[in-house]
Every structure is written in structure tokens, then in C-alpha cells.
């Protein structure tokens, strides 16, 4: 696997390395599309550990993480889930948007995230001790004000936690150029537009324009789509359904391109 480009925003690389060498689990907080997953991919490549990414959804149960019995030619057999695999073989298990998963999933994480570092599998009666290279990383977005979802304090305080945010404009320009090899001038215009759009968050937009969206836009521009069209279809339309807000964003795009 080629090592993905990553531009550090602060000391997150150092923190992650220390956590990894001390076998501590890591929690990453941050808004949508600010580079959480990308960072974990980068770190996995840098540490040379396999990465098991699990995108959590509201139907994800502990079984999906730990594993299940399947029917084979000779009756049933046990199939490890991604978490069990990482625990056995060593590797980074990354649970993206962990608050989306059902509550019972966090229970299996508890014995893994403290000094015991074990994974009991009640279906098979096995208790697996984690491989020295096993590392648990979870992420979530605290910005959603949802009372039904949230990480319990008892879960949260088992992790080394870091907070991510969108990069500062100068860095975001570099990220755009690195990821899409767009020319600097256009990248700067895009980032300026992105920052204007972020000011509309909570009032006119539910979520801010993420770095990911800006990269999509840059890719579309790079491959030859007109800048204004690219901004409309990659920034304006995905961010809002309100026609008046979209018109306002259109005017805003006109300010930059």
C-alpha cells in the first residue's frame, strides 16, 4: 500500500505514535470530512500495521465486529469478525463514527481498551489476548446535538482523545494541491470559498463545507469541469436543499470565480 499524503495540523502524529507504543487506544473527535479517516490510514501506513476500518451504522451489532458462525460443507464453522482479526493478528482496528453503532458494541470494546487488552468471545468461549501490535481507534463527530447518540463517559475515558478541525486556510490549500495537483491560484480561491461557506454553519447550513468536499470540487475542476459548475454540484447542492440558500451560495461562488 502506498503511504497516503498527510499534512499534520498539530502534534497529532506524535501523540498517535506515543499512544501506539504504549498500547493505548485512541479516540478522534472532529467534524465530517476533516481528515480523521485519512489520518488513521496515514498512521497505519507509517507504523506498518494492517488497518481494519469499520464504518459504524445503526444496525451494527457486536456480532458484526466479533464474528459469527457460518454454514460450510462440513457443518458450521466460526468466522472471525474484523475486530477479532485485528486482535489476533495485530493491526489497527478503526471504528468510524462509533456512536452510530448499537450500544452493545461498546461493551465488547471495554475489556480491549483497558489494561487487560482481551477480547472474550462468548459464542465460542474463547478469550483472546490482544496481539502486541493491536490498536483500537474510534472516531465520532460531537457536533451532532443528538440526545440519543453520544459516547458514554465511561467509554470515553478509556481513550487517549484528540480533537480535529478543518485545517487553517494555508494548510488546506497545500492539502488541496497535494491531493489533486490543482494550481495554487484556484486552490486558494476554493479554500476562501470554503471558509465563507463554513460561516453559514448552524444558521443556513446544517454542516460546514468539509475538506473532503473541497477536494472533490478540486478534482472536478482539475479534470476539466468549469470552476463554477464544479462548485455548484460539489459544494452548493450537497450542502443544502433550500433553494434560497443555494441561490445565495451561487452568488457567493460568483464572488470567488
Amino acid at each position, binding site marked *: 500500500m502506498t503511504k497516503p499524503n498527510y499534512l499534520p495540523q498539530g502534534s497529532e502524529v506524535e501523540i498517535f505514535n506515543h499512544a501506539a507504543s504504549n498500547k493505548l487506544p485512541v479516540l478522534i473527535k472532529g467534524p465530517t470530512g476533516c481528515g480523521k479517516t485519512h489520518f488513521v490510514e496515514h498512521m497505519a501506513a507509517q507504523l506498518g500495521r494492517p488497518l481494519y476500518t469499520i464504518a459504524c451504522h445503526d444496525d451494527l451489532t457486536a456480532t458484526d465486529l466479533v464474528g459469527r458462525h457460518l454454514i460450510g460443507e462440513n457443518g458450521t464453522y466460526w468466522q472471525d469478525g474484523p475486530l477479532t482479526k485485528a486482535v489476533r493478528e495485530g493491526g489497527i482496528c478503526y471504528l468510524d463514527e462509533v456512536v452510530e453503532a448499537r450500544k452493545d458494541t461498546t461493551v465488547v470494546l471495554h475489556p480491549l481498551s483497558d489494561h487487560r487488552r482481551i477480547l472474550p468471545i462468548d459464542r465460542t468461549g474463547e478469550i483472546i489476548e490482544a496481539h502486541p501490535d493491536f490498536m483500537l481507534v474510534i472516531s465520532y463527530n460531537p457536533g451532532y*446535538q443528538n440526545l440519543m447518540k453520544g459516547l458514554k463517559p465511561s467509554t470515553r475515558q478509556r481513550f487517549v482523545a484528540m480533537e480535529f478541525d478543518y485545517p487553517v486556510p494555508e494548510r488546506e490549500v497545500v492539502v488541496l494541491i497535494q491531493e489533486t495537483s490543482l494550481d495554487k491560484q484556484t486552490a486558494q480561491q476554493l479554500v476562501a470559498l470554503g471558509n*465563507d461557506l463554513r*460561516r453559514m454553519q448552524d444558521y443556513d447550513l446544517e454542516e460546514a463545507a468539509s475538506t473532503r468536499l473541497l477536494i472533490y470540487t478540486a478534482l472536478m475542476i482539475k479534470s476539466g469541469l468549469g470552476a463554477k459548475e464544479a462548485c455548484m454540484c460539489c459544494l452548493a447542492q450537497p450542502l443544502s436543499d433550500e433553494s434560497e440558500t443555494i441561490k445565495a451560495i451561487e452568488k457567493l461562488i460568483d464572488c470567488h470565480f
Partner: protein
Amino acid sequence: MEEWVGEVWHKLITKRANTEYPDASVSLSAVASQLAPYFRALGGEHHKVIEPTSSLKINFKRSLIQRIAGTHQRTHLCWHDERSIRLPANIAVFPTAALNQQAYFWLAALSAELPKIQHWFVDNQQAILTLITKRPGLKRLYFTLVDAFIQTRPAIDELEGKQLAQEQAVRKALLNPGSVAELPYAEKDPYPILLWLYPTPLSSVSSVASDDDGLEENTAPNQAQKVKGVSKQGHRADDAKETDGLLMFMAESLFTWTEHMNLDRPQDEDLEQDLAGATEDLDFITVAKQRRSNSARLKFDLDLPAPYTDDLAIGDGIKLPEWDYKKGRLKPDFCLLQPMLADDTPPSPVPAELHRTARKLRNQFSILRPQQQWVHRQPFGSELDLDAYMHSVTDPNVHSQDQDLYINRSNTFRDLSCLLLADLSMSTDSHINADQRVIDVIRDSILLFAEALDSAGDPFAIYGFSSIKNKQVRFNLLKNFAEKYTDATRGRILGVKPGFYTRMGASIRQSTEVLCTQKTTQRILLIISDGKPNDIDHYEGRYGIEDTRQAVLAAKKRGIQPFCITIDEEANDYLPYLFGDQGYAVISDAESLPTLLPKLYLNLTSLS
């Protein structure tokens, strides 16, 4: 005949003098909904609203024909204050509608960039320069507008002397922003510059006074005059002086319409006179800053409503503790909370003006009603549960009697209940605009919220609260969990009135008790408030905050999730301390509360 001739002449000459393009006119109302997000995106302050401005009288040199026609004495210009940005109600200066519309967006952008004007001539140029260097598209827009705008200005060859020098400086500043440091002096003000912002006409007395001393050292003499000339339009009377009612009066001074008497008599207005007509003739209207100043500043115990007009008190009241932060402990049985029921309000349906919104909300929320879903591991059901079967075959601790091997369709319930606690304190009696008080907004919000939740099928209760010291915390029952939501409940909600003070802690404690009777997994306590906790005894400032915080913490400990929605713009200072960073929402535009509240509830409780 004379009248007829006069009328024809007036029409003719006005038309002749007109420099605008009525056919291309764009109105503010048509673009306002786009301007607001645009303004915010460019860095404008979130709480500012966009409003049309009344015309300002500008002292500039009019052409002969304009003077004959008597037009162009007043002109629409853009200005803003702490609360709003004021844009012309119509722009018809440019020959095409597209340009006139662009002008609105330009002015919104400039307002976002230039929130405060210190030096009118320099600041405008500087802000424009920053705007157009940052955003190339805006630069194009600006120069298109400037080119068109200069066409509409009086021709250079019609001017002479100082006027000419001034006009040339203005043109240079427009074409090359940032290049002109001073506006040359002339007797009259320059021809209005629509593309610029003007200083707030309603600037305070002190700032007007300081204008006389010269603004800054590099200010041209005319600049001071200029600012003064504009700020004269409005004039905030200095009624801060506490001489209410005592007036030094000189018999020979005659007061005219436009003069303000510093006499605090809010009840004294004689509405029989044609005030509206008078207002139009006024050059400035004096606005008293301290509306209801006495009742707001003085603390006095209010008379309680007479028992026969008051709501029905239920029971002898409930004793509740209160947190004393100085002692660091709860004072047991310190508050007496009195549940009240408005038993005399007639049942009533949803008011006509809310009908549409209510119906829309009902439709939206009906999707939350229990839906059928597959349930696994059932002892009987319509299909086999393969997963369960596999489990029972492979489980080392297999129980032979474990026969839950089917899946079945069944109803699932949203396992949550919600209690809405509304602040009905005296402060809700204040107005948020010409025809709505805070209490009206709260009332509509509660009603629409109830409509939505009733449709969603989530169990809910609604209470209101206000207090007069610790011995009477009034806890108005609007709907409890058990009763059905009917017209009688609606009647009670529609009858809410502003009460007294805000002893929030006691009400939260009682709400916690009520919520704890609910057997659902999730219990939500939504609080609508319009300000800090306070009462007329020691319950204010830190004491009130600490008590409320303890009540909130206690509620959380008992598994209740409190969330506060407030229209108090300063709430960011204290609400994080009370409810946590993610435990509150500040609604800057109070009028939107009724529609936002159900939406917020949906966001807070949606599972997907």
C-alpha cells in the same frame, strides 16, 4: 383647473427630473432571503437582520430640474447598526434589473466587511479594497457596478470649483479604492454614493458630540460636517439622566414637533392626533432608549393576582430543596412549589394563522409513529431465524429448551418521553417586534411542538413556570403525561400569560420528579428560556446559576437528558456552564422559534 394643471405639471417635471429606471427596479423583499445567508457567509454577524431603510435627507447639490421638481431631497442609502443592516427598499439606479440586484449583493458584502465605520471616506475605500483583493469574482462585480454607477452621477462638465474637485475625488476613490485619503471640502455633500455604506443615523449622543471635535486628525473639515449631517437624521435622546419628571422649563422656549422633551410619560401619548402624518414630516424621530425603564430597573414585589382571577392551585404545594453555593450544600425544603392549573380557559382549536404550519408538522412527525419491523429470536413467528438457529447449534452452553428460532414482524416504539418546561417569567412580556411579544412566540412554539409530538406519538408533558421568591414557585400545568392532547389542552396553552420571575432550579427539580415517573429508556427535559435564572430575593447572579446547575446535574444523574433552548443572545456566556457545550441552542431570531423547536426536537431524538 388650477389643480389639474398643477398635477400635470408635477407629473411632467417629476418624470423629467427622475434619474432612476423604474422598469428595472428590484425590491429588497425579493432578494432578502438570499442576502441573509450571503451576508453571513462573508463574515457578517449572525444575529443581524436585513431591513429596508427609510430615506435619508442628504445635503447635496441638485440639478436645476431636480430643484424645480422638488425631488431628490431624500435618498435611500445603505447603513447599519448593532442590530441590523439597512438596505434601500428598492434599487432602481441602474438601467438593468441584473445590475440593481447585484448592487444589493454588493452592499451586503460590504456590510459584512465593514461592521463599524470610523472614518466614512477612508473606511469604505479600505473595506472595498480588502473585499476585492480577497475575492476575484467580487472584483469583477464591483467594477461593473462602478462603471454603471459613474454613468448615473452628474456629468463632470456640469460641475465647477470645489464641487468639481470633490466629485473628482469621489470618482477616483470609486475607481481606485484606497487611493484617496481625503475628501476635498465643498459647501455641499457629494452626490450620494450608493455603493458605499453610510454612518448610522441613529448614532448616540456622545458620538455626535465627539464629531464636533473633529473625528481624527487626518479628517478633512468637511468630513466632520458630513458625518454630522447624516447623523442628524436620527437622534437618540439622552434619557439616561435620572431626572424623570423634573424638568427645567423656560417659558419662552417653544417646542415644535421635532423637539424632544425629556419627560418620561409613556402613558401620555395622545393617539387621537395624526401621528403618522406627523412622522412623515419629521426630520428625525427621537427614540427613547430606555423603554419600560422603571419597571425593568426597579425591584419591587408585585401584587399577586386576586385569587378569583388566578389559576387554580392544586394541593398545598411541594417542598423542594435549593442549592446554596456559599455553603456548598442543599437547603432542604427551602422552596414551595405550587402546581397551578388554568381551569377557566375555554377549549379552543389550533388558531387559524398556525393551521398550515401545524398540519405540515403533523404530517412530518407522523412518520415517527411506531412502524413494523423484523424482530429476531422470537419463540414463534412467520420465518425462521437462521442466525438464532446457528447460535443454538454452535453455542457451547446450549440449552435444549432455548427455542427462540423465529423472526416476526412487530411494532417498535420510540422509547422516549419528553417534558417541555417553558419560562413564563415577566420578561416574556417584552416585545420582539411591532406586533409580537416573547410570550406570543413561546405560546406558538409550545402549541406547534405539542401538535408535532402528538402526531409522533411520543409521550410528552408541558409545564410552564415563574416564581415570586422561594415561597411561591408557580408550576403551571399545561399538559401532563397522562392526559390526551385535546382542545382543552390547546386552550390552556393558548391562555399562557407572563408571570413573575425565573426560579429555574426548583422547576427543574420538579420536572425531574415528573419525568422520573415515566418508564421509557430516554427521558428528555426541554427547557425554553429567555434569560438567566433570577428572582427578587437573593436568587440572582451566581446564586441562581449555581442552583440551576445543581438541579441540571441532579437531573442528569437520574438519567434525564436536559436540553435548553434560549432566545437570550448573551446565553453563550452562561449556558455552557449550566447545560454543557452540546446541551443548549441559542436561537438568535426569536420569531423563528415556533418552527425551529419541532425541528430541533427531531434532530435531538432522531435515531438515524
